């Protein structure tokens, strides 16, 4: 663990701004560590990374990190990132988003960025609730769960972010949990290496709000819950819909190559420029 900590350390801003805004036991820090380990393992130069987020607990992440960081408006990280990537195709553009940020207010941007297959890596931290504003229902809150704006139990059917991204055309799609952080790190690594839009959903924990409102106030309870409900894709394929009720499938759902958007934009531009030179 000691070496792993020092690996992460070099990616934190030198005027270290700690403590973070995150509560003790929150999954955000664990996932930040996983992202940094993936970046470290891939030896990606810090100057080459644009780290972009929207608004929410997890979206505070870039502020602590020693990259080119852009903490934008609620739900809009992806279109900001699209602008950065199109101007600097050589940069590695990473977006971190919460479930409310990405799937509610930013839902339109999410599906369209998947569709374009632009070379951006998106890490979705799904804690099933709005954390920063104090525990309101999210488009990922399970039916029946309690939130401050669903005090009698949630009646809003949730999204499955993986299904959504697959349908919208993302070319790399994976899901993991903070419990299985080694797997999470590996998926992020694969996503970072993928050419095209790569999407990793990580089931995370908000013990302070989601946990407390739903009988799991201890972060350990939440991690054990993740362990219990996570089913690897290979195993899930052999299970019936009834058996999969309340479970969360993890694994790599898609890993394929399709024309990448930025390359297409620049190929067209080169062709037109050659033409005008003739």
């Amino acid at each position, binding site marked *: 663990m000691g070496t792993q900590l020092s690996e992460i350390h070099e990616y934190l801003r030198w005027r270290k701004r700690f403590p973070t805004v995150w509560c003790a036991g929150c999954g955000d820090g664990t996932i930040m560590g996983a992202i940094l380990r993936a970046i470290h393992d891939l030896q990606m130069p810090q100057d080459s990374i644009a780290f972009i987020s929207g608004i929410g607990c997890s979206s505070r992440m870039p*502020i602590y990190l020693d990259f*080119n960081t852009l903490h934008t*408006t609620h739900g*809009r990280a*992806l279109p*900001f990132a699209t602008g950065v990537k*199109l*101007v600097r195709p050589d*940069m590695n553009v990473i977006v971190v988003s919460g479930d409310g940020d990405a799937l509610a207010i930013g839902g339109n*941007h999410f599906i369209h960025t998947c569709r374009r297959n632009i070379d951006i890596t998106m890490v979705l931290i799904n804690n099933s609730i709005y954390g920063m504003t104090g525990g309101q229902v999210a488009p990922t809150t399970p039916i029946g769960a309690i939130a401050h704006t669903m005090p009698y139990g949630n009646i809003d059917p949730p999204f499955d972010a993986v299904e959504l991204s697959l349908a919208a055309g993302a070319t790399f799609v994976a899901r993991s949990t903070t419990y299985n952080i080694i797997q999470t790190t590996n998926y992020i690594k694969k996503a970072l290496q993928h050419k095209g839009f790569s999407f990793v959903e990580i089931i995370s924990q908000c013990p302070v709000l989601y946990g407390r409102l739903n009988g799991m106030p201890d972060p350990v309870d939440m991690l054990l819950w993740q362990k219990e409900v996570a089913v690897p894709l290979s195993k899930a394929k052999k299970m019936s819909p009834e058996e999969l009720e309340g479970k969360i499938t993890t694994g790599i759902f898609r890993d394929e190559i399709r024309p990448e958007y930025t390359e297409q934009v620049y190929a067209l531009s080169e062709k037109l420029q050659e033409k005008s030179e003739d």
Partner: protein
Amino acid sequence: MALNRTTSDGHPVRFVQGNEAVVLGALHSGCRFFGGYPITPSTEIAEGMARELPKVGGVFIQMEDEIASIASIIGASAAGAKSMTATSGPGFSLMQENLGFAYITQLPIVIVNVQRGGPSTGLPTKLAQSDTMQARWGTHGDYTAVVLAASSVQESYEATIRAFELAEKLSTPVIVLLDELIGHMREKLILRMKKDIKEIRRPFPKVPPEWYFPYDIPNDYTAHPAPFGEGFRYSITGLVHDRTGFPTSVPSEVIERLDALREKIITHRKEIWNWKEYEVTDAKYLIVAYGSAARAARGAVAILRKKRIKAGFLELKSIWPFPDGPLMSAAKQAKYVFVAENNMGQLIHAVRENIRHTINVIPINRYDGHPLEPEQIVYFIKEEVYGHSTV
């Protein structure tokens, strides 16, 4: 773009729409990124950029909505590109939140709003000037806007070039207000020669990354955040931030930041102001207007002068920060100031704020989707001169 000719001194001449003039102005300014969404009556700007940008190595992208459009151009600006979008009323409304983001983060962008009738979907194909105040106050929070205007095809071109210069110089969003009439009408446009275009670009940091504070407040209050990927790794956030770019809510730092953002615009106001005077020296009756209303005002002055009525006209080519100096000087002899607008009365508030109380400020408004006509303005002024109109 037909009718390609040149003036005797070699300037290319075109016969184009105001919207096409915006495209040419943007390209001549070195704009290399356009993120947009179709909306009448601004769409020709997006179409022109889609055609032309790839030919010069630039990027055009049609985003999923106007919120994404402005987000994409701010991202492009953070990466160092001169970037712009164009829209109209409803789209401009959707852009307001991120407009504030560009302002607080000091990332230069240009937004062209080809105004149409509102509220809501309103009159999509008809002109209005009813976003005059939205351009000033539209985004939430205290905000000091830089807004330019144009009343002809030539001015649409010039205003776009000026918008890029000011955006890069002040590292702030600059808005160009056109209206449906100006955007869609065709007139002669004389282009600048390549040698006459001095491309203004935000300065690159002069210190090594270790000494770099992106949001230091220098004497002219203007921070120029370094482009991404150049070795200056720092934080950009829409939260109020200190000189490193890290969020702060320390009261003294908050005041310092918000003051600096305003002072930046205010100290450069004389550079931003742009206006033209017509017969104001002895004008007892002064008209103030911008955009398509200015065309009617010019006509009205000509008619009134023929009738020996001492009318003058102050045309505003920049609106915010309000050119109070030029107004004061043009209104020196005025007993009446008429504010002619294609709306229910917006610019008039700024005129009233600034004018001496001994001068009558009188609104002349039209908001049926049609342009003001010189005769209408003449009618209102004659009512004041003779107590009733004889037209």
